[in-house]
């Protein structure tokens, strides 16, 4: 039976009061009976930048790059490029660079076309370009996240699940490269802990390693697993709760090398 949510909730309002249950103070994360939800949400770069900016204004404009994107027939690579370009969009929004965001909005549309999902993305891409023209950064940010999510949903719908993980991986990689680069230039112990993501890297690595071989054709894909292994060992705070400047530099270098390799044909 379907009924109006409004009427049912109003009835509910008169008779129903939420009963608070005290949550356990501690849970055993090794309990085999725990059911962990088998889906992940990867943080977007702005979520991380938001924390870093609370320590002081950062110069994000140096992280905005304009690269020529050469496409080939490798859809896996295109999926990673899509993730990277969306993360570039977030960086350009953080830097409030109108021209870069407009350019990225157009690139997003071109890449989504190559992935066969342009019709779902078009309105968001246009909204990004228009909002960037007006300097409406909250709308740019929202539409970039919507673009990313729309592409992921569409790919899942089209049973292109293999590409979903690669889009997420590309987005995470681009954001991590920018974060490490900013921290390298303006290192602080407090800021360095934003790179403390060993479990997230492990999850990305496990997801990547379970992809079928057909989704990992091309020389760059051999480099990904190796780089993620390396990053997992680096992106971990020490006893003092920091990641050393040396490790930050290494993270910056590793991520930059991988990004470069993805852009190269």
């Amino acid at each position, binding site marked *: *039976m*379907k*009924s*109006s*949510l*409004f009427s*049912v*909730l*109003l009835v*509910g*309002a008169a008779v*129903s*009061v*939420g*009963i*608070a*249950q*005290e*949550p*356990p*103070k*501690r*849970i*055993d*994360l090794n309990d085999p009976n*725990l*059911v*962990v*939800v088998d*889906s*992940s*949400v*990867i*943080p*977007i770069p*702005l*979520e*991380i930048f*938001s*924390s870093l900016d*609370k*320590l002081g204004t950062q110069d994000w404009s140096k992280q905005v790059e304009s690269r020529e994107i050469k496409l080939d027939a490798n859809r896996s690579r295109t999926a990673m490029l899509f993730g990277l370009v969306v993360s570039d969009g977030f960086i350009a929004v953080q830097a409030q660079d109108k021209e870069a965001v407009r350019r990225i909005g157009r690139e997003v549309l071109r890449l989504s076309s190559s992935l066969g999902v342009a019709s779902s993305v078009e309105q968001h891409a246009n909204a990004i370009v228009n909002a960037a023209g007006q300097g409406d950064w*909250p709308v740019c*940010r*929202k539409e970039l*996240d*919507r673009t*990313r*999510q729309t592409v*992921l949903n569409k790919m899942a719908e089209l049973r292109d699940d293999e590409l979903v993980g690669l889009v997420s991986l590309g987005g995470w990689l681009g954001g991590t490269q920018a974060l490490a680069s900013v921290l390298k230039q303006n290192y602080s112990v407090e800021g360095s*802990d*934003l*790179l*403390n*993501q060993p*479990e*997230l890297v492990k*999850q990305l690595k496990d997801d990547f390693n379970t992809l079928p071989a057909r989704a990992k054709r091309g020389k760059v894909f051999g480099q990904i697993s190796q780089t993620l292994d390396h990053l997992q060992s680096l992106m971990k*705070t020490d006893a003092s*709760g920091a990641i050393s400047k040396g490790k930050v530099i290494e993270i910056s270098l590793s991520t930059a090398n991988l990004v470069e390799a993805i852009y190269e044909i």
Partner: protein
Amino acid sequence: MRFDRSIVPLVLLILGLCGGSLPLWGQDPAPAEPSTEVEPPPVHEELKRIAEQVALPELSGDHPFILRESNWSGQVEPGKARLIQVQLFKRNEYSFWFVVPDRKAGLNLSLYNGKGELVEGTNRKYETPNIVSLMTSAGETGIYYLRISMQTTAERPQPWTVIYAYR
């Protein structure tokens, strides 16, 4: 955990304006089906829309939360819990919203750190117990576990959706 009921009337109004026609399992009992983690997407889409409507007051004003487009969803049985692994960042505040369709379904939402210790936060309970939110902040950067559970006030397994925002 602290509880805040100050926004109940607003939420009721918002939900009413949704005018949705979400299937209400509690209203129309049917034979129980074997539980699965996967529900037809339209139900979860509808739940996501409702959660977003409930979240609206937190997304504006001087210090708004920024809503993520991503979400988690699945199915949970009465009296059971699920854990959602999420990477959070120090200095950010987070707000999570958890919703199921059955208005009799009491929900619990809490956050644990990587050692399994409860993280302090503020729960918001709404007039119908099938929506709950949690506002909290990350003491350190790392993996956290969001624990969602449904009380036995619900009779049947429920599809659920969780959304979140940061600032």
